[in-house]
């Protein structure tokens, strides 16, 4: 392991060695190393194989911005080796190879590249007809990178909201200055950076000939930032998108921060771009900033002998840095014919660096899997080199030919990219309100200008927030010298000049895409897949735009770039899933059900007892059907208790309460007597049945209305909506949760209830069917409703929520001599079916009108208006197309139909079953089904296709199945 001496290696701790393995070979790195830097320190440069041609790839940016460094970790495929820190014992493997990473059999594909032209997917696999089915197996096998560890234990990810006056994205010099200015002005500032430490380019770039300025500025700015309590710094944190109203998702560790920022300042810097030439992807060829990162952040010399290809001052700074680090700089290849003399160039000349102005790197050569030499040639014209050149041996080629602004977040905010032909650079405009860009993302490169612009952006933000009323300084003049070379692209007869490393796309691929008719950059992207790989066009967008522009005789500005959608960087599914909340609702009697052996089921958020399987009573082998039938029989013959706390409860109070219900429900309510309940059927404007319940009138101006468990929220919303129009003097309150409720039902219900109810006369005469009373049960204040949903003498008892368990206990104790048993919703479904009562949502659908479901009796004909009334009156004039009927299956040997089984008329579908159960009371299956009108008469025979396609004959019968005289419920 070789390291440059301090102060090289800002991130590493030389006292803390860490062992890990790569491709099953042991390596040692230092704490703070990324996988790529630790491997580089061990002279291991090959990291991965390219997606299509399996070409060897090494570090390109050392900033986690490219797909070259994707490796397989035990828990994580496609980890970026130049971002992922090493850890003790970490096992790292390469990806996408056959055989070994060093000798990948798949690299033979490169020899066939001319048979794999752009769009070959679209051209090659669909002919002749049927071939796709054969190809797809191979393609599926080859597709995708990395392996998912399916044995992995889920890990804890979560989310957190944060709120700031100003969020500064990027903690380079501009970001540090912006954060400081805003914080000094009193703002709460969040400064976010994806790197482990603050400083951005100040941590690795050479900004002056001596190489001391960056450190001085960095130390001063960070000292001030750390000393300012208004600034919160978040490092190793990725602002992964910009959403409306400055909603910024920030990923840090295993947490997704959902940050609301009043003002956002993007100081995201710029992404260095590659030169495009033959074999520009060979390991050893890297961005000049990558080489500087290796040296300054990790103390690793990026090579022994270097060539720098440049179009700007940064290449010279890079060469000086390499020299200082002991790397032999063989030459600086300057694409410019006559570069303007600058202090950096003069310093390079002074140090006797070999400079080749007007030259380009025409091709790279490799020895094994690493760079061995470059061929340089004189540039004759744009993209054209002389016929001959010279070869320079080297193991490192640094590319410093220009940048694109890190525009992704700005573009997500609505910003647009323009291209300035003079500077050969993308620029940003049309930014969102409350969002600024500053620094090199806004085409400022000089340190002084960046600091001024950072402060200016912060002042705009603080003024907008009212912290200051300062004069906003004029924007700094754009710099005269652009770091971008206008055409660092050189085609080669042998190709392999990569524009997009992710997808192995060359100059010819991009040009051929336009020749195939895909001239728009968005179409080029989709046809060629340029920019669709993991690095999302960070290093291909500019070159592709230039090539497409030239090929289509347009300007680069006209050509533009493709849309930069979120997320900016790959994120784990865990970050999106995070810690999810699944609210659960439990009645106050919940644990009594569990103690009684209830099998719970979820209905929406509610937990409800489906049935009880009390093993002590029935033995362990009892199946659910037996339990349910026993519960049904106990209600029919004795007394049962069911928890109906989930029923919706709505208080409708006020002088216009009756009138309100009259308009809202189908029945009449104005003349409903106090002390009585009335069935309440709800339809929507289309006359479709959407809910039902009972309206209990406790006083002239007070109705307590029940609604279905699943429908109450919608009923409540509809009530509020309609009364917003009607403006009746009525108050509506959803009190569903405020009441625990039970239905005590069965012939002995009165007998049990009477033991606990001293202040209400429960006699048939004093408290008849559909009566309502207020009083106490077991000393608990209660509302009692005589209902008959299950077809027996029954009382719903509604008590304040927290009394629910005590009520349950009291009734179960009191009913012990009578043999009271709890029953669940499965038994309740059978009981109500026997009684012919429908369940809204199960026996109705989005088309069911009251007449179809035999609820015409619940529609008032005397009212001038109710919701859906107009439609219903029109529907009544039409011949119905279907009817919900009861049916009975007399042949009990066949299968029992299930919900949604089809009713057939010959081979044609004629309806469907909505409910069907074996009736313990009748001793045969019964059900409800939609049938055609001609089959709706009692005595008609219908055919139902049951499981396995078995045809079952059923007889249509008059509802209800049970107790047609209602004698039992009116007992």
């Amino acid at each position, binding site marked *: 392991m070789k390291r440059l001496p301090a102060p090289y290696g800002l991130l590493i701790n030389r006292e803390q060695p860490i062992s890990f393995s790569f491709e099953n070979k042991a390596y040692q790195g230092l704490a703070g190393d990324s996988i790529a830097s630790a491997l580089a320190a061990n002279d291991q440069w090959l990291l991965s194989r390219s997606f299509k041609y399996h070409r060897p790839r090494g570090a390109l940016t050392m900033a986690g911005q490219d797909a070259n460094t994707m490796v397989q970790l035990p828990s994580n495929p496609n980890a970026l080796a130049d971002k992922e820190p090493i850890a003790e014992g970490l096992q790292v493997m390469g990806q996408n190879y056959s055989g070994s990473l060093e000798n990948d059999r798949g690299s033979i594909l490169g020899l066939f590249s001319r048979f794999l032209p752009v769009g070959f997917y679209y051209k090659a696999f669909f002919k002749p007809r049927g071939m796709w089915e054969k190809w797809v197996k191979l393609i599926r096998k080859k597709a995708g990178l990395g392996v998912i560890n399916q044995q992995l234990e889920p890990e804890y990810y979560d989310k957190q909201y944060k709120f700031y006056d100003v969020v500064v994205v990027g903690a380079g010099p501009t970001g540090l200055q912006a954060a400081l200015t805003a914080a000094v002005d009193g703002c709460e500032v969040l400064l976010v950076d994806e790197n482990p430490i603050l400083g951005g380019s100040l941590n690795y770039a050479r900004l002056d000939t001596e190489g001391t300025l960056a450190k001085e500025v960095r130390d001063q700015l960070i000292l001030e930032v750390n000393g300012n309590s208004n600034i919160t710094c978040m490092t190793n944190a990725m602002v992964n998108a910009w959403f409306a109203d400055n909603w910024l998702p920030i990923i840090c560790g295993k947490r997704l921060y959902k940050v609301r920022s009043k003002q956002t300042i993007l100081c995201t810097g710029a992404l260095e771009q590659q030169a495009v030439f033959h074999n520009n992807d060979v390991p050893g060829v890297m961005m000049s900033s990558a080489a500087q990162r290796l040296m300054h952040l990790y103390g690793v010399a990026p090579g022994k002998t270097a060539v720098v290809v440049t179009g700007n001052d940064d290449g010279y700074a890079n060469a000086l840095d390499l020299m200082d680090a002991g790397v032999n700089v063989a030459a600086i290849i300057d694409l410019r014919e006559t570069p303007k003399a600058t202090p950096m160039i003069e310093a390079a000349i002074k140090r006797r660096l070999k400079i080749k102005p007007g030259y380009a790197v025409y091709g790279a050569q490799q020895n094994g899997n690493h760079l061995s030499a470059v061929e340089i040639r004189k540039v004759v014209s744009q993209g054209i080199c002389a016929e001959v050149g010279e070869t320079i041996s080297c193991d490192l080629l640094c590319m410093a030919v220009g940048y694109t602004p890190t525009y992704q977040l700005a573009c997500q905010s609505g910003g647009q990219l323009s291209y300035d032909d003079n500077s050969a650079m993308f620029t940003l405009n049309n930014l969102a309100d409350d969002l600024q860009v500053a620094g090199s993302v806004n085409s400022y490169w000089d340190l002084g200008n960046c600091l001024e612009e950072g402060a200016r952006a912060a002042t705009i933000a603080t003024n907008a927030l009212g912290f200051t009323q300062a004069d906003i300084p004029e924007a700094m003049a754009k710099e005269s010298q652009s770091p971008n070379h206008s055409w660092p692209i050189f085609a080669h007869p042998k190709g392999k000049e990569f524009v997009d490393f992710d997808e192995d796309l060359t100059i010819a691929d991009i040009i051929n895409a336009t020749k195939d008719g895909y001239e728009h950059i968005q179409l080029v992207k989709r046809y060629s897949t340029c920019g669709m790989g993991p690095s999302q066009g960070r290093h291909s967008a500019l070159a592709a735009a230039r090539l497409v522009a030239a090929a289509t005789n347009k300007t680069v500005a006209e050509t533009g770039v493709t849309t930069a959608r979120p997320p900016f960087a790959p994120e784990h599914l865990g970050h999106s899933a995070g810690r999810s909340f699944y609210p*659960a609702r439990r009645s106050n009697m919940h644990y009594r059900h569990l103690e009684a052996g209830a099998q719970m089921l979820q209905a929406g958020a*509610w937990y409800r007892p489906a049935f009880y399987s009390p093993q002590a009573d029935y033995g362990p082998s009892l199946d659910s059907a037996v339990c349910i039938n026993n519960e049904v029989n106990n209600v029919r013959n004795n007394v049962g208790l069911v928890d109906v706390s989930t029923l919706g409860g709505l208080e409708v109070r006020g002088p216009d309460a009756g009138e309100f219900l009259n308009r809202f429900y189908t029945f009449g309510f104005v003349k409903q007597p106090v002390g009585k309940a009335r069935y309440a059927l709800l339809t929507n404007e289309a006359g479709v049945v959407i809910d039902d319940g009972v309206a209990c009138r406790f006083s*002239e101006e007070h109705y307590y209305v029940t609604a279905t468990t699943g429908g109450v929220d919608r009923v409540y919303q509809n009530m509020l909506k309609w009364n917003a129009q009607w403006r009746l003097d009525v108050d509506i309150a959803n009190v569903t*949760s405020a009441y625990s409720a039970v239905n005590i039902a069965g012939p002995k219900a009165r007998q049990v209830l009477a033991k606990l109810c001293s202040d209400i006369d429960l006699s048939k005469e004093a408290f008849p069917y559909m009566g309502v009373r207020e009083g106490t049960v077991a000393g608990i204040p209660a509302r009692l409703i005589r209902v008959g949903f299950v077809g027996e003498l029954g009382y719903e008892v509604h008590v304040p*929520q*927290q009394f629910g368990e*005590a009520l349950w206990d009291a009734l179960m104790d009191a009913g012990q001599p009578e043999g009271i048993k709890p029953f669940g919703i499965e038994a309740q479904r059978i009981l109500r079916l026997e009684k012919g009562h429908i369940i809204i949502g199960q026996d109705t659908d989005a088309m069911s009108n009251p007449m179809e479901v035999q609820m015409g009796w619940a529609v008032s004909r005397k009212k001038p208006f109710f919701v859906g009334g107009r439609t219903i009156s029109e529907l009544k004039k039409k011949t119905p197309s279907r009817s919900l009927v009861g049916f009975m299956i007399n042949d009990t040997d066949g299968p029992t139909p299930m919900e949604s089984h089809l009713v057939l008329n010959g081979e044609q579908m004629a309806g469907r079953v909505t409910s069907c159960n074996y009736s313990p009371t009748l001793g045969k299956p019964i059900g409800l089904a939609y049938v055609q009108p001609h089959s709706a008469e009692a005595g008609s025979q219908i055919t139902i296709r049951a499981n396995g396609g078995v045809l079952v004959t059923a007889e249509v019968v008059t509802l209800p199945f049970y107790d047609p005289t209602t004698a039992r419920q009116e007992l």
Partner: protein
Amino acid sequence: MTDYNPLLPIAPAQGNRRSPLYRRHVDLQAKFEQVGDAVLVSHYVKPGIEVLLAANLGLVDLSTMPRTGFKGAGAPAWAASQRVKLPKLPNTAVTQKDGSVVAKLSHQELLIVSNIMGSATSIDRLNREHLNREHSNKEHLNREHLNREHSNKEHLSKQTLAPQTYSLPRADSHSWLAVTGNAAAEMFSKICGVDLRVHKFAHNQVAQTSVAKINGVILRHDLATTPCFYILSDITSTEFLWDSLLDAMEEYRGAAVGVAAMRSLAANK
């Protein structure tokens, strides 16, 4: 139901009114105290330790404590006539003389929670007064009803005791939890999208929002210098919310504490 005997340890299910969380408290070996017709967790571990826990981050179940609500066009005026000090603006609260807190949820809706001693005097009085008012209103209306029937006139003028005030069963519709301590706001930021930091969300300020995906009313009501947030949310989801809060609190070493710790902090001026 077991009769209350002051000489016996208080069992959480001895009263008819039971917190949805009482089994959780039993699991945590809580010591209970009697408050009105119900019981409340006094403390789980040693009270002195709980004060420290609560000062950092504590979660208290106050669901059996008195609370009520009124709404309607006449609610503010009626409450004022009952000597209730009203907040000027919706989403703010005012502490009453007896320590109870009146929060204005809208121009026509009031939420009233008791002091942390559980003393229900003022709340009981308001509920009683309102019930009396309802009864007299009902009698008046019944007379009107009879008159209408006798006169056989459908639309005889109704002279109710307007403007209307309606009671809301807040003691049963909503659970009442308290989150105490200096880390409370930071913890809330994991489960609630409202900025509850103490310099952004003032004492006696109210937010009607979503907490861990369920609707809730958050009322900041400090215990002397210790931040304290009341959460009133759907009572049927109390266990879910309790578990979600404890899960979110773990990162900050938060824990369930009893009301005794709250009282100590409140007295610590």
